[in-house]
């Protein structure tokens, strides 16, 4: 089931009403309801993969308990590695097997040997990267004695499969989400209204901005050899906006939906395109994944401590793994490597934490220098996105090469004034909301209620008038 579908439009109010009216004040029943709703939500996509979700949940639930009950370190280690290897094994088979098989065949082909690899003809179970990472963090935290295992299977099941975050995150931590699932939840008016506002804004970003930009980005990327440099630049910018609108829109809907059930999820985006350098961008983009890698990979590897070589190694590892997490394709690995190259100079010159505070804090506009830095960072990020979007590394390189070789300064052939107006509208709202959790959080709060409600109605109108009418899945579903 997609957030931007009519099915979800009846599913959400139904679960909401059952949750706050039928099983209100009974956390155990509320959690059973959430678990059933979440499994139904997942089954609407493909019920055959429910077993995988259930198996992954059972595995981590039992190994968590076994680790805590293990009398000695060796047994604890056994259960830990059992869980890790099975989790990564599933991920490896479903997501990476074909990539390794094909890459192996290509590699030996260089030496003249012809190998026909046996590849799996299976679709990627949606959300596998996300719920596997939920489970991994839980198991690692128990192994490191940071948390106690959850004994209640229903509570643990909700932690792994809570439907707002099930298919594309945010990647939650047991320390953050489990206590919220265990406690009594009371209805909070402000939280629920906040949730609705966030859903509205997320929906706008997804169905109007992301899907609208996708139309042009696809057009340009799919026939990139036909277009001028300026059109290719526009195509890359459209994709940059598309992926932001798509994923941050999804995250806003997920966070807003969770709020309707009295649950606060981890923030996933903090206006990343208003960043002044790449380090700041990565503190603001897909925050739940970046911090996951930081806590469970980068820091255990030594982080930014140690010698120059170790710093470079760790930076490359985390960005390459991050790229590989997105998919089994060399384009994602190149995207990760490019970001590592952007990031390294800042790290090595100790400038990676220069821009901690929000850009232009307390001001209407940024300074000229800040503006230039923001544009520069956006340009670097957009170049990297070309690798992310392209069909192959070769396509990405040709695309970037053509930008400079084919009429960069002539007017773009593909141009949508309407789309540009809508993107500017979104950026303005986001800019004025950048000091908040999400753009609409306090937007228009000084206005009379009637005016503010009319503004929300206007956003609903924009959605109705400019949304893509075909349901398009979120980009991150494929990861």
């Amino acid at each position, binding site marked *: 089931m997609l957030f931007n579908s009519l099915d979800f439009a009846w599913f959400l109010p139904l679960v909401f009403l059952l949750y706050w009216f039928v099983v209100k004040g009974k956390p155990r029943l509320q959690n059973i309801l959430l678990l059933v709703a979440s499994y139904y939500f997942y089954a609407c996509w493909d019920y055959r993969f429910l077993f995988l979700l259930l198996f992954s949940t059972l595995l981590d639930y039992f190994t968590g308990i076994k680790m805590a009950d293990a009398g000695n370190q060796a047994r604890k280690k056994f259960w830990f590695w059992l869980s890790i290897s099975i989790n990564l094994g599933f991920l490896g088979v479903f997501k990476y097997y074909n990539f390794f098989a094909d890459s192996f065949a290509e590699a030996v082909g260089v030496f003249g040997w012809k190998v026909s690899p046996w590849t799996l003809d299976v679709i990627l179970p949606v959300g596998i990267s996300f719920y596997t990472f939920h489970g991994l963090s839980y198991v690692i935290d128990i192994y490191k004695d940071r948390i106690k295992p959850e004994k209640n299977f229903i509570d643990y099941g909700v932690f792994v499969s809570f439907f707002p975050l099930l298919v594309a995150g945010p990647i939650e931590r047991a320390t953050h989400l489990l206590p919220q699932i265990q406690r009594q939840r009371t209805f909070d*008016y402000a939280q629920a209204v906040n949730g609705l506002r966030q859903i509205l804004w997320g929906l706008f970003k997804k169905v109007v901005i992301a899907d609208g930009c996708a139309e042009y980005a696809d057009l340009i990327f799919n026939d990139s050899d036909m277009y001028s440099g300026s059109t290719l630049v526009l195509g890359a910018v459209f994709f940059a906006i598309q992926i932001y609108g798509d994923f941050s829109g999804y995250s806003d809907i997920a966070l807003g939906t969770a709020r309707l059930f009295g649950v606060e999820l981890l923030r996933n985006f903090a206006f990343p395109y208003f960043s002044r350098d790449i380090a700041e961008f990565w503190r603001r983009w897909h925050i739940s994944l970046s911090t996951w890698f930081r806590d469970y990979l980068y820091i255990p590897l030594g982080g930014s401590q140690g010698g120059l070589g170790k710093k470079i190694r760790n930076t490359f590892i985390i960005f390459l793994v991050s790229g590989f997490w997105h998919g089994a394709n060399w384009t994602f690995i190149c995207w990760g490597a490019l970001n590592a190259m952007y990031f390294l100079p800042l790290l090595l010159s100790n400038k990676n934490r220069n821009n901690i505070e929000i850009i232009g804090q307390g001001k209407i506009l940024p300074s000229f220098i800040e503006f230039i830095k923001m544009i520069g960072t956006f340009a670097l990020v957009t170049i990297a996105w070309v690798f992310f979007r392209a069909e192959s590394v070769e396509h990405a390189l040709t695309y970037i090469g053509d930008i400079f070789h084919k009429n960069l300064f002539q007017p773009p052939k593909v141009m949508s004034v309407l789309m540009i107006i809508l993107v500017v509208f979104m950026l303005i709202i986001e800019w004025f909301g950048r000091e908040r959790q999400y753009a609409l959080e306090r937007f228009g709060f000084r206005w009379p209620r009637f005016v503010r*409600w009319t503004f929300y*109605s206007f956003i609903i109108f924009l959605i109705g008038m400019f949304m893509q009418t075909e349901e398009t899945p979120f980009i991150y579903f494929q990861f």
Partner: protein
Amino acid sequence: MKQFLLNILKFLPLAAVFYILMVIFWGDFMPERYKKNLIYNRGSFGHTLSRLNDAANTKDVDVLFLGASTCYRGFDTRYFESKGFVSFNLGSSSQTPINTHQLLKRYLRQLKPKLVVYEVYPETFQIDGVESTLDITANDRVDLYSAQMVFKTLNAKTLNTYIYASYRQLAGKNDLSRQPKRRETDTYIDRNGFVERDLTYFKYLTYKNEVKNGKVIKKEWIIRPEQQAAFEATIALLKAEKIPFVLVRAPITSRLNDSYENNAEFEAYIQQHGRYYNFNKRLQLNDSLDFYDAVHLNRNGVKVFNEALYKQLK
């Protein structure tokens, strides 16, 4: 919670009124390129406006034809008239079973056909019906039937167009009730619903979607459950009204037809519901000489097809 629900109940009417006003404003004042989800084409392609206007003024016909463009371009009402039968062609562009069912509910008792010929082109079973809903909403009168049709094909486009069409009707802005008989190479046959295309021939150069590297791309008809349900509802309606009917597949080019691997499966399904004639099998037409594109018969093809159909019905 009470406050929350109360505020939602206050907000929803405000949002609904604002939305309707904005759609009307947008429809009246904004240029076409900014009306992405408001497709109000009155008196446009396919002569739907004239046809539905004629349908509203026609009573008691012998034969009623239903279906998509394969219908209103394939069944020549003049031919049946020459044989002494009054007929009306209620086909419209991309008309799917959902649209057919709603149109039939509106016009059946008024047209009182002695026989219904329902053209079942499988393509119309695998599309959502939005295009046809937009076409009918803009060109027919807005009422409960069109509201049902919009609801069954609900999305932003059908909803906005329905709102705007309702406003135009209420405000008396729909002064245009017919369109010129001649539009590009098409001629509308007055009072009959049939549209005749000037004689042209199909060239395979325009056949890009079906051929790749010189080979026909094999595919399957994928039937939507909601279209299947609407088709069965139409059959039930005809049976309830005791109106005899035949199900017909008008010919399409053999190359396109053969590119579908599950024609037999579709045919078996249709045959369960009534007398069925598939003219792709019964006629040996020439893809180039008898068609003007991959799907539509040209004048020569229409003549051969109608003669064969008449023989069969007689």
